[in-house]
């Protein structure tokens, strides 16, 4: 049953944001292709076109990073607390399954857009380093050095770590968003309406990310990347000072973000189960 829930939630959320995704896709594709053709065709003002194209792509995707969060939130609000809630909440499934499915589908959409944004940013940096085309591989080294990464291996560690960190971040983001919306549908918190949902989300998200980072600093275990591989260390700050260390990633921030996101599931399910009345 969870598979069916997830399938339908992905579909429902897609229908709430496909216009945005389509516009972003078109603008990004046109911008990137213009940059590529300008380079390959050796157009007049090719450098300017490439710079504008690459910049436009990541700016649009940065914008999409914010809008997608709003779109996922609106979808959650409509399907649980709006008139579609009559259908959602009368399905013969546990409320916790409903929440899990909506969280996972929201996480997938937001994470994909965030990854697309980071990819566009990376492509833009390569553009700026003039590495698209024949000299890609050799020139990529210059980009890596600019990023403080001496090799592709380091790049792999860095991107891998970033994607995992992003996943935890988006997980907490989506849970806080859903929690804020849920709280805004429970009396007396409902008095502030939609504004309340945004406010509760920002407060809860701010507090929990702050606490996660504080705990992360108190327990500075994590990974450092060197040319010989990834090394687990009990103090990333101390290890980062060592020779050849390039990638540093604190682990406990991520762990606490995931723990907080998981813990938010329970009060949210309780509120939907016991306190929320579908209007």
């Amino acid at each position, binding site marked *: 049953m969870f598979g*069916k829930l997830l399938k339908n939630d992905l579909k429902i959320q897609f229908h709430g944001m496909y216009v945005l995704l389509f516009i972003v896709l078109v603008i990004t594709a046109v911008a990137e292709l213009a940059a590529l053709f300008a380079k390959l065709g050796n157009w007049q003002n090719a450098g300017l076109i490439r710079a504008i194209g690459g910049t436009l792509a990541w700016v649009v995707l940065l914008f999409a990073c914010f809008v997608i969060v709003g779109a996922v939130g609106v979808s959650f609000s409509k399907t649980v607390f709006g008139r*579609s809630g009559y259908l959602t909440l009368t399905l*013969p499934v546990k409320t916790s399954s409903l929440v899990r499915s909506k969280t996972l589908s929201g996480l997938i959409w937001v994470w994909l857009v965030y990854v697309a944004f980071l990819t566009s940013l990376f492509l833009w940096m390569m553009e700026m380093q003039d590495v698209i085309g024949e000299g890609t591989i050799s020139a990529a080294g210059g980009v890596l050095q600019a990023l403080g990464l001496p090799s592709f291996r380091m790049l792999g560690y860095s991107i891998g770590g970033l994607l995992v960190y992003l996943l935890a971040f988006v997980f907490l983001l989506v849970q806080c968003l859903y929690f804020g919306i849920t709280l805004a549908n429970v009396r007396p918190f409902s008095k502030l309406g939609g504004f309340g949902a945004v406010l509760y989300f920002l407060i809860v998200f701010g507090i929990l990310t702050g606490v996660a980072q504080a705990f992360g600093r108190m327990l500075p275990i994590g990974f450092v990347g060197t040319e010989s591989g990834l090394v687990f260390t009990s103090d990333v700050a101390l290890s980062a000072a060592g020779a050849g260390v390039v990638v540093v990633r604190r682990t406990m921030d991520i762990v606490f973000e995931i723990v907080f996101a998981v813990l938010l599931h329970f009060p949210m399910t309780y509120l939907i189960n*016991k*306190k929320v009345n579908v209007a």
Partner: protein
Amino acid sequence: MDLITAENLTKSYGSNTVLNNLNFTLPAGEVIGLFGPNGCGKTTMMKILTGLIHDYEGTVKIKGEVPGEKTKAFISYLPEQSFVHDWMRNVDAVNYYADFFRDFDRERALKMLEHFHLPLKQKCKSMSKGQQEKLVLSLVLSRRAELYILDEPLGGVDPAARNDILEFIMNNYAKEATLLISTHLISDLQSVFTHAVFLGNGQVLLNESAEDILAEGKTVEQRFMEVFAHVW
């Protein structure tokens, strides 16, 4: 045999008590009319039965179960407003129901859509309110449920179409099931009810079989006027 039991059921919205310490049972296998003026708590009671409202006092049981995951599997609910997503086509709505309700009869649903002249590929947002109501009614009645809860099924239907819709409901619900219908259109529906519940002032003012009411030489509507003349 009783299907629904409520003990000391109370539900308030802030300081407004809509259902006040209700105690009642409702029989299985009947067509039950839930009558009362606007704001008397009909929809609230239906939401409690369907598991949409939880913050009430007292106990409610349907087939011995508190409204929840288990009862949702055998209750088919028609709310006052359409719940289908705007982007859905009729066929998407049918597929959605087929995904989640084991008692959903897909072939039956398709026949009902055909009966109402609703094309499978038509999107909900391009449909009139009346067409959307017909779609939702088709979905709800295509389930082989044990309890159908219909909240004002004729509320948005023009007088000319009411008889058709009513006939459609009576011909298509699972005959061994219980049908609970709320309405304020008593005169249109009184011929089909086998049991009547009057709700007013937060109380169950009457809970009798239609046979008993008729035995008194009165119609359900006359009894309604009599009861509510004392209340309002």
